């Protein structure tokens, strides 16, 4: 389903005229260019509120985002997407939807497979994936880098880790689009996608019960919970849904935004081609300036954040991307400085919910940019095409038309 087709199913939100008191992270203006909006909100208050989404706050400063991220007593992770509806919680995805004390044991199960050393073992496969993709379009002198490159790298990498067919990628991308974008406004689409995904993974669990394999699904199936017993299937299925949902369009977005920046900034592109050792530092800056992931919390108890009262019954749009643009913490916060030395960015979150896949994402981003620059050092945005951005929780280019080679 394309974005234009699916858009017709979405109930319309009225356009925003007063961002400070009525913000909406699904508004087309926000989707297209959120940075001036965040600046306006930050100038108004460290915490702003909207009546949309049944009531939602947004911390606008790094400090306010950090206070909320560290405060698991007043703010729960049981809902991690700000949506139009707040139905009963049925499908949990531990540890992202877990609070203390359940959070730590659930998270610790997932940490060892995602350490930097584990990622080094996966790196050659990711490098090969990138080159296979580039082989598919390099002779054309043009491509939609979002549809034909950045999208497929994280899908194939996580499929490889989980031990599921890399060819099922289109299915995963459809579910993720339904859960993270369409699901904000239509609960039935989200529920169906979650069910389909659960059924898909239940099939893989059944297969491995017959024939255990050496992959992440088997690792989770063999893991023991805090009580020393194997994890219930419900927990394993929830964690698998999480890995698929969190592992794909996040990194797809991060690689896409990095390439988008390099396509329109020849000086940075030329410098990284000449100094590939700078790429990891540049990747941290792309993560800061174009952080893809906005999380959510639910207010459980009355609290005060950066001097602002916050009341239960509301959600919180936990915008790490906005925190990373706060000039109180980052000099030249609105500029992309690819050799930025001090960069305490929070693109992967702060506190106990630090992204479990951060080492995977960094490796994929670094390899994807290295391989692209090696083979396509000279490229630009296609002026005849249009760059489009995803809506809502994860921000990144979904169409990224590029010219290179004979067209550069």
């Amino acid at each position, binding site marked *: 389903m394309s974005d234009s087709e699916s858009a017709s199913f979405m109930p319309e939100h009225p356009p925003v005229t007063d961002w400070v008191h009525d913000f909406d992270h699904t508004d087309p203006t926000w989707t297209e260019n959120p940075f001036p909006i965040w600046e306006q909100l930050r100038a108004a208050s460290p915490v702003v509120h909207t009546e949309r989404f049944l009531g939602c706050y947004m911390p606008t400063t790094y400090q306010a985002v950090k206070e909320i991220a560290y405060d698991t007593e007043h703010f729960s992770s049981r809902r991690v997407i700000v949506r139009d509806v707040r139905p009963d919680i049925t499908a949990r995805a531990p540890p992202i939807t877990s609070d203390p004390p359940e959070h730590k044991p659930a998270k*610790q199960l997932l*940490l*060892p497979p*995602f*350490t*930097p*050393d584990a990622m080094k073992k996966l790196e050659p496969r990711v490098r090969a994936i990138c080159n296979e993709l580039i082989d598919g379009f390099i002779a054309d002198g043009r491509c939609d880098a979002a549809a034909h490159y950045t999208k497929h790298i994280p899908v194939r990498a996580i499929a490889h880790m989980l031990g599921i067919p890399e060819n099922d990628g289109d299915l995963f991308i459809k579910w993720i689009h339904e859960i993270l974008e369409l699901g904000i406004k239509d609960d039935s689409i989200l529920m169906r996608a979650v069910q389909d995904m659960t059924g898909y993974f239940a099939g893989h669990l059944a297969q491995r019960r017959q024939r255990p394999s050496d992959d992440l699904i088997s690792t989770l199936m063999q893991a023991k919970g805090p009580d020393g017993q194997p994890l219930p299937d419900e927990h394993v299925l929830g964690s698998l849904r999480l890995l698929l949902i969190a592992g794909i369009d996040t990194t797809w977005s991060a690689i896409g935004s990095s390439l988008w920046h390099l396509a329109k900034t020849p000086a940075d592109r030329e410098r990284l081609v000449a100094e590939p050792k700078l790429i*990891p530092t540049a990747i*941290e800056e792309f993560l800061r300036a174009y952080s893809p992931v906005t999380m959510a919390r639910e207010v459980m108890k009355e609290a005060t954040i950066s001097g602002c009262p916050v009341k239960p019954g509301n959600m919180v749009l936990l915008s790490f991307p906005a925190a990373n643009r706060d000039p109180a913490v980052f000099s030249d916060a609105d500029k992309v400085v690819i050799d930025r*030395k*001090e*960069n*305490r*960015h*929070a693109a*992967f979150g*702060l*506190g*106990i919910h*630090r992204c479990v896949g*951060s*080492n995977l994402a*960094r490796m994929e981003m670094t390899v994807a940019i290295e391989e692209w620059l090696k083979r396509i050092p000279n490229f630009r945005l296609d002026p005849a095409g249009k760059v489009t951005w995803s809506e809502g929780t994860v921000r990144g280019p979904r169409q990224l038309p590029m010219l290179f080679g004979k067209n550069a």
Partner: protein
Amino acid sequence: MSKLKIRVDQDKCQGHARCKSLAPELFELDEYGNAHEVGDGSVPAGLEDKAWLAQTNCPEIAIEVTEE
């Protein structure tokens, strides 16, 4: 230059691993990916800049650098 000593606060570290990537000589990661200072945390001569770089890039502000 005075001698530096580093310490990773285990209550604060969340395993972002920025320190390990910026100063691999000074930090090691455990099986969960959380960082620990190598040995007693003494910074060998010549690695002072890396110690400060790790400190200023830790998102959780979990790294303490002290001058002895």
